[in-house]
């Protein structure tokens, strides 16, 4: 069965601090995809990144970076020099290869204080 675990329910940091959001997944599939979505206070979910199971290269996009490690079944998300606008709930998700079903973690609420 597919499962995504985000053990951190809520994290609070002060602006400019770095913060890492953890994501651990379970799947028996050899082909799968991992995602991160952001849900700001307005409520709408926004896509951040997609990674396939064959691509373990880390990715950096501005202040955001993602670390994918198949050996530990983890797909962690780091925000460098956090800003107040980063305050949101962040969801990690796992999809089967055909994208029919997505399995979401319970989310991590990030509070960035000025």
């Amino acid at each position, binding site marked *: 069965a597919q499962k995504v675990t985000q053990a951190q329910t809520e994290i609070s940091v002060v602006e400019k601090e770095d913060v890492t959001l953890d994501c651990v997944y379970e799947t028996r599939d050899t082909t799968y995809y991992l995602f991160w979505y952001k849900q700001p206070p*307005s409520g709408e979910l926004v896509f951040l990144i*997609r990674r396939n199971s064959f691509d373990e290269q880390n990715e950096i996009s501005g202040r955001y970076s993602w670390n994918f490690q198949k050996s530990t079944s983890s797909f962690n998300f780091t925000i460098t020099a956090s800003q107040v606008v980063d305050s949101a709930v962040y969801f990690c998700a796992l999809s089967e290869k055909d994208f*029919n*079903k997505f*399995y979401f973690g319970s989310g991590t609420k990030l509070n960035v204080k000025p």
Partner: protein
Amino acid sequence: NAGVTQTPKFRILKIGQSMTLQCTQDMNHNYMYWYRQDPGMGLKLIYYSVGAGITDKGEVPNGYNVSRSTTEDFPLRLELAAPSQTSVYFCASSYGYTGELFFGEGSRLTVL
């Protein structure tokens, strides 16, 4: 730039009532999904569709029905509403080959 549009945004139902949540997308996406989000929980898949005329159950389909008569529309029907169906409902769509989901703004449903 409408994207995915859900209506209504808020609704209060009495136990036993029925209603339909509407979802329309204008991006010509083949794949559409309905999720529910309960407090402190992730999103749970209710139903999904990979194209007009094709629907399938997700993780939590009981108490719901869907139809997909057109590419654009994917309504979610709640029959005999129960307090356990109090939740925020999200409709999403995607091309199906990228996996990137585009979400609507959500519909907050309360069953009293």
